[in-house]
């Protein structure tokens, strides 16, 4: 315990490793900056929200998306690392899906961005495969007693995107307006999309 606990802070060690690798000619800080801004600005849950909103407003797209997620998502321009094979799981009146990665924190980056802290937290990784109803309740989602729960442990390279149920009271809304309602948490299955 002591040796690792007494190491310099992670901020200092990151700075040190960056300096060493720059000296070795292996890393270009400008490339690092581009990676960071890409995931801070461009690749995030808004991508997934656009996919969901399109599926809610275009029945043929919804069918293609559920049959084979990866090409349907690529139609909207999304794909890349951690999204080689995306499977879409549809929430229904009877079934609730929730996604986890117990072995690391695998997550569909092209549609949701980088995983949030609760997804990477040991409590979620350890417990949602053992007592999902209890865990979802702790996270603020109280599922009806009769709802069937399906938990998906992404233990290989398949990545899962949850298609939430469209909330009532949104008849006539267009895809852009609907996308504004869709949350990251609903697309992993730990929340539902609230009615406006």
């Amino acid at each position, binding site marked *: 315990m002591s040796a690792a606990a007494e190491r310099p802070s992670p901020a*200092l060690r990151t700075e040190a490793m960056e300096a060493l690798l720059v000296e070795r000619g292996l890393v270009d800080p400008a490339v690092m900056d581009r990676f960071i801004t890409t995931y801070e600005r461009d690749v995030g849950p808004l991508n997934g929200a656009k996919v969901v909103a399109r599926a809610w407003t275009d029945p043929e797209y919804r069918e293609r998306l559920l049959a084979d997620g990866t090409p349907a998502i690529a139609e909207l321009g999304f794909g890349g690392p951690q999204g080689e094979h995306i499977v879409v799981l549809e929430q229904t009146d009877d079934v609730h899906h929730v996604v986890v990665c117990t072995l690391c924190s695998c997550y569909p980056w092209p549609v949701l961005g980088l995983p949030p802290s609760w997804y990477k937290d040991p409590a979620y990784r350890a417990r949602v495969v053992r007592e*999902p109803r209890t865990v979802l309740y702790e996270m603020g989602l109280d599922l009806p007693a009769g709802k069937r729960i399906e938990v998906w442990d992404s233990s290989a390279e398949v990545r899962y995107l949850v298609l939430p149920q469209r909330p009532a009271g949104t008849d006539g809304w267009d895809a852009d307006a609907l996308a504004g309602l869709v949350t990251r948490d609903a697309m992993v299955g730990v929340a539902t999309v609230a009615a406006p």
Partner: protein
Amino acid sequence: MDPLADMGGSPGWGPAKVPDPDEAPFAEPWEGRSFALTLLTMNRVSGRNLDAFRYALERLDPVSYLADGYYGRWLNAAELMLTDSAVLAPGAVDARARRLAGEEVEEPAFPEPARPDYAPTGPGSLREVEGPPAFAVGGAVVTADLRPRGPSKLPGYLRRRRGTITAVRPGHLLPDTHAVFEGENPQYVYTVGFPSTELWGPDAEPFTLHADLFESYLIPESEADR
């Protein structure tokens, strides 16, 4: 013993976090630097061998895995890959960090790199597999009793459990050999569904657990003696 990273079902972690809808991708600037540095390290050192990176995470001691969160874990795994391949000397990162903090410490010299001999046959982790899949949707299977010393993607809580094939997925590189640079050996992956009672006993909450498992982790139920 299974690595700490194999967390499914393990006790003692407390309540789940309540999601913060406005959480930023990186809580502090160093987390973004660690993220980018790790991706570049993977590209430059291991030819984008993602399985080798995950195996580095699994080899971390518990403090290195947990103490500084997700991007601290990434940083430590990247450092392990860099010292494994002698791009950096052991202790080099700490020595430089202490110097940055104003301490007078000697830094080890750069070693002679010994990177793994590795050339992927294609991009990413999916590959064509010759021949048909061994299992079909609906097939009854039992998971193998695997307890390897090296890498494996069979979660401990799914060892020796009866399940049913939910879906047949594309061929994947086999992490068991790929993570240690011993070949891609692609296999079909299957999503396998398990009733919660098969995993956690008769008092379990009712639900179905699906996991993505490699063909060599599965035995047809008809051939399993259990």
